[in-house]
């Protein structure tokens, strides 16, 4: 064997090893195969996730002919906006949107304030019965709202509050709004992490318990407040079961309070009745319904794209995963 063949062999084995390393990786670096499979999986699952949204938007722009045409599957032949106009008319879009903001907004603000006070109380004071109260808090989260729903409804109808926004405001005012236990726990975790020294220093300088809460605890709680505010708003916005029961008032059909989600729930019947009286609208088909769904989702979708960083990082900040 001469030197040339040996060199050749060495080079061959080296490249083979390199190739192997490239595919399967080493201890330090991920292999190409693994990376590829991870990306492929993520993209596939991501597509599955977005499929309903894609489907919704693509269908909502189709006109009657496109719907019937089997060759049109994803991309409509023309952007047919009349669906949106019809749906918006039927849903009373702008009015419902404004009402939706009120229905979700006012309870959210109250809920944030009261949950913050309660969370701070649990986090920074020792008092008798605290453990029992915390247990009650968790219990009230696990308890389905259907148990308390009927007597609460009776209470509201005795006070003539059904069909008004008070039915949402009152529980929020006493830290018992929608999903309030979660928010109280978030604030509890957050305030536990605020160094006690800060508050003690303020108290030495003569601040009372409430003053040190307002001057020191609240200004440092910015991230937690934002998190709770966003989640609370989204959950109130999307809550249709209790909104229909309390705020719209299930008994009266022509109620003042109607948000987009409720309008979507009654969309079929309201569209039909409007179509028969107006006469000019197209018949109810899936593009109109998808357009209505898209309109319902749209406000939150826009909010999500502007605030997505806060949403996604929120779970980290809440300290739910423990420190």
């Amino acid at each position, binding site marked *: 064997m001469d030197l040339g063949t040996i060199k050749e062999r060495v080079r061959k084995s080296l490249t083979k090893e390199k190739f192997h390393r490239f595919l399967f990786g080493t201890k330090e670096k*991920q292999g190409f195969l693994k990376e590829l499979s*991870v*990306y492929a999986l*993520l993209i596939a*699952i*991501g597509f*599955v996730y*977005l*499929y*309903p949204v894609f489907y*919704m938007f693509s269908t909502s722009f189709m006109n009657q002919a496109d719907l019937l045409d089997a060759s049109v599957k994803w991309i409509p032949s023309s952007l047919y906006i009349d669906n949106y106009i019809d749906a918006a008319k039927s849903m009373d879009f702008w009015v419902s949107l404004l009402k939706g903001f009120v229905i979700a907004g006012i309870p959210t603000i109250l809920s944030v304030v*009261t949950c913050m*006070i*309660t969370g*701070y*109380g*649990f986090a920074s004071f*020792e*008092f008798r019965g*605290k453990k029992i109260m915390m247990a*009650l808090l968790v219990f*009230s989260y*696990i*308890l*389905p*709202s*259907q*148990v*308390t*729903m*009927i*007597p609460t*409804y*009776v209470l509201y109808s005795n006070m003539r509050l059904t069909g008004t926004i008070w039915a949402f405001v*009152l*529980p929020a005012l*006493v*830290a*018992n709004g929608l999903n309030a236990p979660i928010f109280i726990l978030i604030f509890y975790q957050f305030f536990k992490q605020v160094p006690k020294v800060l508050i003690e220093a303020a108290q030495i300088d003569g601040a009372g*318990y409430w003053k040190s809460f307002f001057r020191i605890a609240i200004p440092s709680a910015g991230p937690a407040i934002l998190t709770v505010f966003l989640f609370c708003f*989204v959950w109130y*916005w*999307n809550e*249709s*079961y209790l909104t229909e029961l309390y705020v719209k008032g299930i008994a009266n059909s022509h109620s003042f309070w109607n948000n987009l*989600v409720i309008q*979507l*729930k009654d*969309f079929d019947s309201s569209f039909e009745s409007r179509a028969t009286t107006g006469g000019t609208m197209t018949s109810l088909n899936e593009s109109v*319904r*998808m357009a*209505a*769904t898209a309109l319902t*989702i749209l406000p939150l979708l826009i909010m*999500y794209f502007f605030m997505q960083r806060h*949403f*996604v990082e929120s779970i*980290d900040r809440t300290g*739910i*995963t423990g420190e």
Partner: protein
Amino acid sequence: MNLLAIKKKNKKPKGKLGKLERKQELAGYSFVSIWIIGMLVFTLIPMCQSFYYMWFKIKARNGLQFTYVGTSNITQIWIEDPDFIQQIASYVWQTLLQVPIIVVFALIIAIMLNGKINFRGIFRLIFFLPVIIVSGPVMNMLVSEGAASIPALNTQAVVSAFDMFLPTAIAQQLGTLFGNMIMTLWYSGVQILIFLSALQKIDPGLYEAAKMDGGSDWECFWKITLPTIKPMILINAVYTVIFLSSNEQNQLINLIKTAMFSATAERGYGYASAMAWIYSILVTIIVLIFFALLGSKKDVYDRMVKKRKRLEIKEERIARRVERRSVRNARKIERQRQKGMFRTYDGSGDY
């Protein structure tokens, strides 16, 4: 005895508090008082009331008119309302099937996102999107228009395959599960984020040490990752159960609502209350099942500490008993000596 005395001294006097502690306690109550009122008015009192309603037929005519009927509301549900029973069965099956799927799926996604990948932000954005837009009517719309299932995924084949070797009831549930697979996956947004942030808090030194000792990725997952995030698995499971139970896709809660406003004399508030109680007991049982399955047994160190404490308490009790007995015996001996009836054995042989 010495040990006892020290312990007694160290124990805080119960009942009376110092001035500062008293002040702190008052401040704490003042902060929490809002919530206590709310808890009473909107949770505890209504709970008792609906428990009370359960045993009555209630007519809502010029105020509520109660007639006591005993357990007949409950028996009526079981006998005359096959729809409710059926929905309960399917709810239990669906929850027990969906929760593990959602949790495992969320864990897999979180682990993939936790690796070194580009565009992590975009993927997180996509996986969290459903949390924002999910609401009852929107879901109903999407499901009814067939956007919830992928046509390319032939669920019929899957179901018939399951039908071969599983009872029909379970196979059917699996079928509906596969039919709405996207919706099931859509419910896992929050869980993914919880897992992701838990994974990022694991000390990388642990993995390094394991790799030094020759551990593979697979072993690292089972021996390090899983034990560390075990509490999070429990949290996610409970969150999922609660979410599924209060979600409007769940037919049970709609049934309760319709029963509540039913115009017939047999239904109404009392009947709906009975339904709600059955339902909530069910939910609680499911939560407890997951607690029992996933509830973290404390780690070895904690267990040792607990054992040691238990031993200490036992020793203390023995010490106390010995003390008590010695006092009693001393008193006895004293008494007998005073009577002159007590003689000690002096070793002489006769006494």
